[in-house]
């Protein structure tokens, strides 16, 4: 349980404090209170603690008669990084897209901060799915401003937020350049800025390190840890075991569209009776009689 929960937007503290991303500053409630005061984001003391959480219950989804997600249930708590670990085609991307409200489940439901309606869920989720998709004829700043306006951010605070996001993600040098011709890392950082602009309480990423160089991967991991530390619910999918082990507090192993095991990496090893996460993953998703 994070003592920071219940604020209007904890991640905004991160967004307005560059050293959290590149430096090693500690996170204290005093620091964040000061930040909230500085950026004039109203606190919501009445918001109950522990409300922000992603839950899926018995989700099912088929495409053209093929069942992709079969009764998938899992919970991602606040202040933790939850990994969805699964092989290609296991249903990770479809699950994340349902959480983000771009796909509707055939049955079952998703709640984000207790909201079930897809538009309501989208208000409190920032997402970086497999489609980065920037507008190449717009600059970084214009790309961010567009999504900020769509999110209903007020013009007076939007500019300030954009400047902060640009600063936090180290985009100053390219902020006024059109995004055509950007490197993968620059595109990824711009897309991250877009996802974090509205200070989401929940952050969803789909295989975020694909195609990134090592420094960018390291920065991204740092970012996710800092978001986790301020109480954000982080969910990301991956099939890279090292990444999952390095980042995740909890892992939900998904195979053939359903959750086959959940727990910390150590708990999964213990459950499968193996020494390594790789062996545990194989054991849990592909039993010996099948593989």
């Amino acid at each position, binding site marked *: 349980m994070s003592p920071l929960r219940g604020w209007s937007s904890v991640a905004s503290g991160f967004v307005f404090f560059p050293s959290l991303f590149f430096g090693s500053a500690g996170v204290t409630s005093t620091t964040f209170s000061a930040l909230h005061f500085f950026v004039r984001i109203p606190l919501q003391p009445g918001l109950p603690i522990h409300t922000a959480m992603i839950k899926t219950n018995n989700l099912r989804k088929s*495409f053209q008669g093929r069942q992709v997600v079969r009764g998938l249930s899992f919970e991602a708590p606040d202040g933790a990084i939850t990994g969805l670990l699964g092989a290609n085609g296991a249903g990770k991307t479809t699950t994340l*897209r349902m959480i*983000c*409200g*771009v*796909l*509707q489940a055939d049955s079952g439901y998703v709640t984000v901060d207790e909201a079930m309606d897809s*538009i*309501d869920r*989208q*208000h409190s*989720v920032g*997402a970086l*799915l*497999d*489609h*980065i*998709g*920037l*507008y*190449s*004829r*717009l600059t970084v700043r*214009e790309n961010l401003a*567009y*999504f900020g*306006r*769509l*999110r*209903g951010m007020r013009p007076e605070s939007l500019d300030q937020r954009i400047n902060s996001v640009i600063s936090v993600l180290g985009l100053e040098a390219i902020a006024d350049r059109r995004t055509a011709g950007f490197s993968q890392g620059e595109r990824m950082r711009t*897309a991250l800025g*877009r996802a974090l602009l509205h200070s989401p309480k929940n952050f969803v990423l789909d295989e975020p390190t694909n195609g990134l160089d090592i420094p960018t991967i390291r920065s991204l991991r740092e970012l996710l840890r800092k978001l986790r530390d301020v109480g954000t619910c982080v969910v990301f999918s991956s099939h890279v075991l090292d990444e999952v082990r390095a980042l995740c507090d909890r892992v939900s192993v998904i195979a053939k569209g359903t959750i086959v095991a959940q727990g910390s990496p150590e708990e999964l090893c213990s459950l499968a009776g193996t020494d390594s996460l790789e062996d545990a993953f194989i054991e849990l998703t592909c039993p010996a009689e099948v593989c």
Partner: protein
Amino acid sequence: MNQILTIARKEIVDGLRDSRSVAASLAYALMGPVVVGLVSMTVHGKKDSEAVLTGMMAIFTLVSAFVGGMNVAMDTVAGERERKSLLPLLMNAVPRANVVLGKWLAVSFFAMGGLVINVLGFLVVCESAGMHVTASSRELFLGACGLFTLPFLASAIQLCISTISRGVKEAQTYLSLVTFVPMGMGMFLVFCPAAARTWCRFLPLVGQQLQFEALMNGSGVSFLQPVVLGYLTLALAALVLLVAANRLQRDEIIYGN
């Protein structure tokens, strides 16, 4: 409403920055006046020359309403799917009907621009060819009410087709074919004017052509016809937009690629 205007504004800015697309739309819009200008020099003084020129102008005008926003319509949905920017857009708490309406307004802006440039070009041609529009200012206003609803319908149709298409190339193929509809319809009515019945005056597209010709040859425009025609055209556009919005709800939009 804010979301709709935000999307429309972004699409217009984005579209205007695509200089090749703007140049192509401008060329399409001015093609009619240039061609009719050249023909007017050839047929000058011959019998029925004005009828020929009026028929040509009507066809080019209808086509210009369709080509002005064609590139933007292609780019704004099919292009977004191809560039994988549609999914991030749909994750931003924007109802899909708002996405369709915003994009439709932007496409209509370009289509209207093409039509206005085309009509202005024809006014210059008429002036230089010695053709005089005898319609009263009231008739011209009523005629404009009917005619200038056409870009809204054309944009809705193009946007709907773009929503169905999986990529820009596919959209381009279908939208190019759609351009032949006003062209073919226009040519048919020019060569077979007797085929136009009274009810045709209230039919979107055909009605606009007949109205344009009536304005040019001075046969008069009633109050009822352009008003009803305008309403019917906008109603049809709304219907097509509903189809597009419905299409945007489908899973194929996300998985189509």
